[in-house]
Protein backbone atom coordinates (compact mmCIF):
# COMPACT_ATOMS: atom_id res chain seq x y z
CA UNK A 1 0.00 0.00 0.00
CA UNK A 2 2.79 2.39 0.96
CA UNK A 3 4.69 1.41 -2.17
CA UNK A 4 1.66 2.19 -4.28
CA UNK A 5 1.18 5.52 -2.55
CA UNK A 6 4.86 6.27 -2.99
CA UNK A 7 4.66 5.53 -6.70
CA UNK A 8 1.60 7.74 -7.07
CA UNK A 9 3.34 10.60 -5.28
CA UNK A 10 6.48 10.16 -7.35
CA UNK A 11 4.45 10.09 -10.54
CA UNK A 12 2.62 13.28 -9.57
CA UNK A 13 5.82 15.07 -8.60
CA UNK A 14 7.50 13.98 -11.82
CA UNK A 15 4.56 15.34 -13.80
CA UNK A 16 4.91 18.58 -11.87
CA UNK A 17 8.63 18.57 -12.60
CA UNK A 18 8.06 18.13 -16.32
CA UNK A 19 5.52 20.96 -16.33
CA UNK A 20 7.40 23.48 -14.20
CA UNK A 21 11.10 22.74 -13.98
CA UNK A 22 12.07 24.56 -17.17
CA UNK A 23 10.45 27.85 -16.22
CA UNK A 24 11.44 27.43 -12.59
CA UNK A 25 15.09 26.78 -13.41
CA UNK A 26 15.34 29.82 -15.66
CA UNK A 27 13.45 31.95 -13.18
CA UNK A 28 15.82 30.99 -10.37
CA UNK A 29 18.78 31.50 -12.66
CA UNK A 30 17.52 34.95 -13.67
CA UNK A 31 17.10 35.72 -9.98
CA UNK A 32 20.38 34.28 -8.73
CA UNK A 33 22.66 34.60 -11.77
CA UNK A 34 24.37 31.42 -10.65
CA UNK A 35 23.89 28.13 -12.43
CA UNK A 36 24.92 26.06 -9.41
CA UNK A 37 22.43 27.85 -7.20
CA UNK A 38 19.70 27.27 -9.78
CA UNK A 39 20.56 23.59 -10.08
CA UNK A 40 20.67 23.09 -6.35
CA UNK A 41 17.59 25.13 -5.51
CA UNK A 42 15.39 23.41 -8.10
CA UNK A 43 16.66 19.92 -7.31
CA UNK A 44 16.35 20.44 -3.57
CA UNK A 45 12.83 21.87 -3.87
CA UNK A 46 11.60 18.88 -5.86
CA UNK A 47 13.45 16.41 -3.62
CA UNK A 48 11.72 17.97 -0.60
CA UNK A 49 8.40 17.79 -2.42
CA UNK A 50 8.98 14.10 -3.10
CA UNK A 51 9.64 13.48 0.57
CA UNK A 52 6.63 15.44 1.78
CA UNK A 53 4.24 14.00 -0.78
CA UNK A 54 0.59 14.44 0.09
CA UNK A 55 1.32 16.86 2.92
CA UNK A 56 1.68 19.58 0.29
CA UNK A 57 -1.66 20.93 -0.87
CA UNK A 58 -0.46 23.12 -3.71
CA UNK A 59 2.73 21.41 -4.89
CA UNK A 60 3.36 23.80 -7.79
CA UNK A 61 3.37 26.88 -5.64
CA UNK A 62 5.24 25.01 -2.92
CA UNK A 63 8.19 24.08 -5.14
CA UNK A 64 8.43 27.61 -6.53
CA UNK A 65 8.43 29.00 -3.03
CA UNK A 66 10.95 26.44 -1.80
CA UNK A 67 13.29 26.97 -4.76
CA UNK A 68 13.32 30.75 -4.38
CA UNK A 69 13.85 30.57 -0.64
CA UNK A 70 16.67 28.08 -1.05
CA UNK A 71 18.26 30.24 -3.73
CA UNK A 72 17.92 33.37 -1.62
CA UNK A 73 19.47 31.54 1.33
CA UNK A 74 22.38 30.30 -0.73
CA UNK A 75 23.07 33.74 -2.14
CA UNK A 76 23.52 35.04 1.40
CA UNK A 77 26.35 32.58 1.97
CA UNK A 78 29.82 33.89 1.21
CA UNK A 79 31.34 31.66 -1.42
CA UNK A 80 34.81 32.05 -2.78
CA UNK A 81 33.97 30.04 -5.87
CA UNK A 82 30.96 32.09 -6.89
CA UNK A 83 31.47 33.34 -10.39
CA UNK A 84 29.68 35.23 -13.08
CA UNK A 85 27.98 32.68 -15.25
CA UNK A 86 29.18 34.01 -18.57
CA UNK A 87 28.75 30.66 -20.28
CA UNK A 88 25.06 31.12 -19.77
CA UNK A 89 25.11 34.18 -21.97
CA UNK A 90 26.76 32.28 -24.81
CA UNK A 91 23.93 29.75 -24.83
CA UNK A 92 21.23 32.36 -25.26
CA UNK A 93 20.07 34.70 -27.94
CA UNK A 94 21.22 38.29 -27.62
CA UNK A 95 17.86 39.67 -26.38
CA UNK A 96 17.63 37.01 -23.70
CA UNK A 97 21.20 37.47 -22.54
CA UNK A 98 20.67 41.24 -22.45
CA UNK A 99 17.63 40.64 -20.32
CA UNK A 100 19.52 38.42 -17.87
CA UNK A 101 22.24 41.04 -17.58
CA UNK A 102 19.72 43.84 -17.13
CA UNK A 103 18.02 41.94 -14.30
CA UNK A 104 21.26 42.19 -12.33
CA UNK A 105 20.62 45.90 -11.93
CA UNK A 106 17.38 45.36 -10.01
CA UNK A 107 17.24 44.86 -6.27
CA UNK A 108 16.78 41.22 -5.19
CA UNK A 109 13.14 41.83 -4.24
CA UNK A 110 12.40 43.60 -7.50
CA UNK A 111 14.19 40.86 -9.43
CA UNK A 112 12.30 38.08 -7.67
CA UNK A 113 8.95 39.75 -8.26
CA UNK A 114 9.70 40.43 -11.92
CA UNK A 115 10.92 36.93 -12.79
CA UNK A 116 8.10 35.26 -10.86
CA UNK A 117 5.61 37.37 -12.78
CA UNK A 118 7.13 37.22 -16.25
CA UNK A 119 8.71 33.75 -16.19
CA UNK A 120 6.51 31.99 -13.66
CA UNK A 121 3.31 33.68 -14.77
CA UNK A 122 2.22 34.39 -11.19
CA UNK A 123 -0.05 37.20 -10.02
CA UNK A 124 0.96 39.67 -7.32
CA UNK A 125 -1.01 37.72 -4.71
CA UNK A 126 0.63 34.46 -5.72
CA UNK A 127 4.08 36.06 -5.70
CA UNK A 128 3.37 37.39 -2.21
CA UNK A 129 2.58 33.85 -1.11
CA UNK A 130 5.73 32.48 -2.72
CA UNK A 131 8.03 35.14 -1.31
CA UNK A 132 6.35 35.41 2.09
CA UNK A 133 5.52 39.05 1.44
CA UNK A 134 2.35 41.06 1.03
CA UNK A 135 0.45 41.74 -2.17
CA UNK A 136 0.95 45.48 -1.73
CA UNK A 137 4.71 45.11 -1.32
CA UNK A 138 4.94 42.83 -4.35
CA UNK A 139 3.01 45.32 -6.46
CA UNK A 140 5.48 48.02 -5.50
CA UNK A 141 8.48 45.80 -6.28
CA UNK A 142 6.91 44.74 -9.58
CA UNK A 143 6.14 48.28 -10.62
CA UNK A 144 9.56 49.64 -9.67
CA UNK A 145 11.37 46.60 -11.05
CA UNK A 146 9.61 46.69 -14.42
CA UNK A 147 10.23 50.41 -14.71
CA UNK A 148 13.90 49.99 -13.89
CA UNK A 149 14.22 47.03 -16.24
CA UNK A 150 12.75 48.96 -19.15
CA UNK A 151 15.14 51.83 -18.51
CA UNK A 152 18.17 49.53 -18.43
CA UNK A 153 17.10 47.70 -21.57
CA UNK A 154 16.46 50.96 -23.41
CA UNK A 155 19.91 52.21 -22.42
CA UNK A 156 21.40 48.98 -23.74
CA UNK A 157 19.49 49.29 -27.00
CA UNK A 158 20.79 52.80 -27.67
Amino acid sequence: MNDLRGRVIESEIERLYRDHSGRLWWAVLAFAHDREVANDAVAEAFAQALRRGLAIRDPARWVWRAAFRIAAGELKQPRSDRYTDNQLVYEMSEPASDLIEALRKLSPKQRAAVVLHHVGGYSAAEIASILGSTRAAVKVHLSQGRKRLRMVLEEDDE
Partner: protein
Amino acid sequence: MSDLDERFRELREKPAPDQWQDIQRRDPQPAQAHGRSRLLAAGVALFVAAAAFVILARAFVPSTGTTAPADQTSSTSPPSPTLSEAPVVFLAPYLNGGTGWSTYSSPPAKEGDPSYAWASTIPIVQADVQYGAAIPPSTIEHLPANGIVVTVEVVPSEYQSSSVPFPYAERSYDLGSATVRGPEAEEPEGNYSVYISGLPLRGRT
Protein backbone atom coordinates in the same frame (compact mmCIF):
# COMPACT_ATOMS: atom_id res chain seq x y z
CA MET B 1 1.46 40.88 -24.67
CA SER B 2 3.66 43.60 -23.15
CA ASP B 3 7.13 44.45 -24.37
CA LEU B 4 8.62 42.81 -21.30
CA ASP B 5 6.53 39.69 -21.77
CA GLU B 6 7.99 39.40 -25.24
CA ARG B 7 11.49 39.82 -23.82
CA PHE B 8 10.89 37.05 -21.27
CA ARG B 9 9.44 34.61 -23.77
CA GLU B 10 12.73 32.80 -24.37
CA LEU B 11 13.16 32.19 -20.64
CA ARG B 12 9.67 30.72 -20.44
CA GLU B 13 10.17 28.42 -23.38
CA LYS B 14 13.82 27.42 -23.20
CA PRO B 15 14.47 23.90 -21.82
CA ALA B 16 16.48 23.56 -18.64
CA PRO B 17 18.86 20.81 -17.48
CA ASP B 18 16.99 17.58 -16.73
CA GLN B 19 17.77 16.79 -13.09
CA TRP B 20 14.97 14.33 -12.41
CA GLN B 21 17.22 11.32 -11.86
CA ASP B 22 19.36 13.34 -9.48
CA ILE B 23 16.25 14.47 -7.64
CA GLN B 24 15.07 10.88 -7.16
CA ARG B 25 18.42 9.95 -5.65
CA ARG B 26 18.90 13.15 -3.72
CA ASP B 27 18.77 13.16 0.05
CA PRO B 28 16.94 16.37 0.98
CA GLN B 29 18.95 18.70 3.17
CA PRO B 30 17.74 19.87 6.57
CA ALA B 31 16.60 23.47 6.68
CA GLN B 32 19.69 24.77 8.44
CA ALA B 33 21.93 23.54 5.64
CA HIS B 34 20.79 26.52 3.64
CA GLY B 35 22.17 29.10 5.92
CA ARG B 36 22.49 30.45 9.36
CA SER B 37 20.78 33.65 8.32
CA ARG B 38 17.56 31.77 7.62
CA LEU B 39 17.63 30.37 11.13
CA LEU B 40 18.18 33.74 12.68
CA ALA B 41 15.32 35.27 10.75
CA ALA B 42 13.29 32.22 11.61
CA GLY B 43 13.55 32.83 15.30
CA VAL B 44 11.55 36.01 15.02
CA ALA B 45 8.83 34.37 12.98
CA LEU B 46 8.61 31.41 15.30
CA PHE B 47 8.03 33.64 18.29
CA VAL B 48 5.37 35.36 16.29
CA ALA B 49 3.70 32.08 15.49
CA ALA B 50 3.95 30.88 19.06
CA ALA B 51 2.38 34.04 20.36
CA ALA B 52 -0.25 34.12 17.70
CA PHE B 53 -1.85 30.84 18.58
CA VAL B 54 -2.00 31.63 22.26
CA ILE B 55 -3.65 34.96 21.71
CA LEU B 56 -5.99 33.73 19.03
CA ALA B 57 -7.09 30.83 21.16
CA ARG B 58 -7.97 33.16 24.00
CA ALA B 59 -9.61 35.71 21.78
CA PHE B 60 -11.93 33.22 20.12
CA VAL B 61 -13.25 31.34 23.14
CA PRO B 62 -17.07 31.72 22.97
CA SER B 63 -18.46 33.53 25.97
CA THR B 64 -21.53 31.43 26.78
CA GLY B 65 -23.98 28.89 25.52
CA THR B 66 -21.72 26.71 23.41
CA THR B 67 -21.66 23.06 24.15
CA ALA B 68 -18.63 20.98 23.55
CA PRO B 69 -18.85 19.33 20.16
CA ALA B 70 -18.53 15.61 19.69
CA ASP B 71 -14.81 15.25 19.49
CA GLN B 72 -13.61 13.10 16.65
CA THR B 73 -9.99 13.89 17.12
CA SER B 74 -10.11 14.69 20.82
CA SER B 75 -8.80 17.79 22.43
CA THR B 76 -5.17 16.91 22.44
CA SER B 77 -2.38 17.99 24.67
CA PRO B 78 0.82 18.69 22.84
CA PRO B 79 2.52 15.34 22.40
CA SER B 80 5.87 14.83 24.02
CA PRO B 81 8.86 15.11 21.75
CA THR B 82 10.89 12.00 21.24
CA LEU B 83 14.29 13.54 21.53
CA SER B 84 15.96 10.18 21.81
CA GLU B 85 14.84 9.27 18.30
CA ALA B 86 16.11 12.30 16.47
CA PRO B 87 18.87 14.80 17.08
CA VAL B 88 16.52 17.79 16.88
CA VAL B 89 12.76 17.65 17.44
CA PHE B 90 10.33 20.54 17.69
CA LEU B 91 6.97 20.45 19.41
CA ALA B 92 4.16 21.51 17.17
CA PRO B 93 2.27 24.67 18.09
CA TYR B 94 -0.61 24.14 20.48
CA LEU B 95 -3.99 25.85 20.63
CA ASN B 96 -5.46 25.97 24.08
CA GLY B 97 -9.05 25.72 22.86
CA GLY B 98 -11.69 25.88 25.55
CA THR B 99 -15.33 24.95 25.94
CA GLY B 100 -16.90 24.33 22.58
CA TRP B 101 -13.62 24.01 20.73
CA SER B 102 -11.94 21.03 19.14
CA THR B 103 -8.18 21.22 18.88
CA TYR B 104 -5.44 19.29 17.20
CA SER B 105 -1.68 19.51 17.05
CA SER B 106 0.50 17.73 14.54
CA PRO B 107 3.11 15.33 15.92
CA PRO B 108 6.55 16.59 16.95
CA ALA B 109 8.47 17.64 13.89
CA LYS B 110 12.00 16.81 12.93
CA GLU B 111 14.02 19.75 11.77
CA GLY B 112 13.04 20.44 8.18
CA ASP B 113 9.44 19.33 8.57
CA PRO B 114 6.49 21.67 9.08
CA SER B 115 4.16 21.50 12.07
CA TYR B 116 0.77 23.01 12.72
CA ALA B 117 -2.19 23.26 15.08
CA TRP B 118 -5.89 23.80 14.59
CA ALA B 119 -8.82 24.86 16.76
CA SER B 120 -12.37 24.76 15.48
CA THR B 121 -15.86 25.50 16.76
CA ILE B 122 -16.98 22.30 15.02
CA PRO B 123 -15.38 18.87 15.29
CA ILE B 124 -12.24 18.64 13.21
CA VAL B 125 -12.86 16.31 10.30
CA GLN B 126 -10.74 13.19 10.53
CA ALA B 127 -9.80 13.35 6.86
CA ASP B 128 -7.94 16.58 7.53
CA VAL B 129 -5.82 14.87 10.16
CA GLN B 130 -5.00 12.03 7.80
CA TYR B 131 -4.26 14.44 4.99
CA GLY B 132 -1.69 16.27 7.05
CA ALA B 133 -1.95 19.64 5.37
CA ALA B 134 -1.40 22.92 7.16
CA ILE B 135 -5.00 24.01 6.66
CA PRO B 136 -7.97 21.70 7.41
CA PRO B 137 -9.97 22.05 4.18
CA SER B 138 -12.76 19.59 5.02
CA THR B 139 -13.39 21.21 8.39
CA ILE B 140 -13.53 24.63 6.78
CA GLU B 141 -16.02 23.35 4.21
CA HIS B 142 -18.28 22.10 7.02
CA LEU B 143 -18.22 25.37 8.96
CA PRO B 144 -21.65 26.84 9.73
CA ALA B 145 -22.33 30.57 9.69
CA ASN B 146 -20.27 32.21 12.45
CA GLY B 147 -18.09 29.11 12.68
CA ILE B 148 -14.39 29.62 13.27
CA VAL B 149 -11.29 27.63 12.43
CA VAL B 150 -7.94 28.82 13.78
CA THR B 151 -4.79 27.49 12.16
CA VAL B 152 -1.18 28.03 13.09
CA GLU B 153 1.68 26.74 11.00
CA VAL B 154 5.36 26.72 11.80
CA VAL B 155 7.35 26.16 8.63
CA PRO B 156 10.85 24.67 8.64
CA SER B 157 12.62 27.95 8.06
CA GLU B 158 11.06 29.29 11.25
CA TYR B 159 12.69 26.80 13.60
CA GLN B 160 15.56 27.90 15.73
CA SER B 161 17.91 25.12 16.76
CA SER B 162 19.08 26.92 19.86
CA SER B 163 15.58 26.91 21.32
CA VAL B 164 14.61 23.26 21.16
CA PRO B 165 12.02 21.94 21.64
CA PHE B 166 9.86 25.02 21.10
CA PRO B 167 10.68 28.61 21.85
CA TYR B 168 7.94 30.60 23.49
CA ALA B 169 7.32 34.24 24.20
CA GLU B 170 4.33 36.27 25.25
CA ARG B 171 3.18 38.71 22.61
CA SER B 172 -0.16 40.29 22.13
CA TYR B 173 -2.07 40.55 18.89
CA ASP B 174 -4.80 42.90 17.87
CA LEU B 175 -7.16 41.10 15.54
CA GLY B 176 -8.50 44.48 14.56
CA SER B 177 -5.27 45.02 12.69
CA ALA B 178 -5.22 41.57 11.11
CA THR B 179 -5.26 41.30 7.35
CA VAL B 180 -8.72 40.22 6.19
CA ARG B 181 -9.38 38.61 2.84
CA GLY B 182 -11.47 35.96 1.17
CA PRO B 183 -10.28 32.44 0.40
CA GLU B 184 -7.37 32.15 -2.00
CA ALA B 185 -6.15 29.38 -4.25
CA GLU B 186 -4.80 27.17 -1.51
CA GLU B 187 -7.99 27.29 0.51
CA PRO B 188 -11.44 25.77 -0.04
CA GLU B 189 -13.91 27.88 -1.95
CA GLY B 190 -16.72 29.42 0.07
CA ASN B 191 -18.21 32.52 1.56
CA TYR B 192 -15.89 33.09 4.48
CA SER B 193 -13.22 35.51 5.61
CA VAL B 194 -9.59 34.77 6.42
CA TYR B 195 -7.93 36.81 9.16
CA ILE B 196 -4.15 36.70 8.97
CA SER B 197 -2.11 37.70 11.97
CA GLY B 198 1.57 37.18 12.51
CA LEU B 199 2.71 36.22 9.05
CA PRO B 200 3.57 39.72 7.82
CA LEU B 201 5.79 40.23 10.85
CA ARG B 202 8.70 38.25 9.42
CA GLY B 203 11.79 40.36 9.59
CA ARG B 204 10.48 42.81 12.17
CA THR B 205 12.06 42.99 15.57
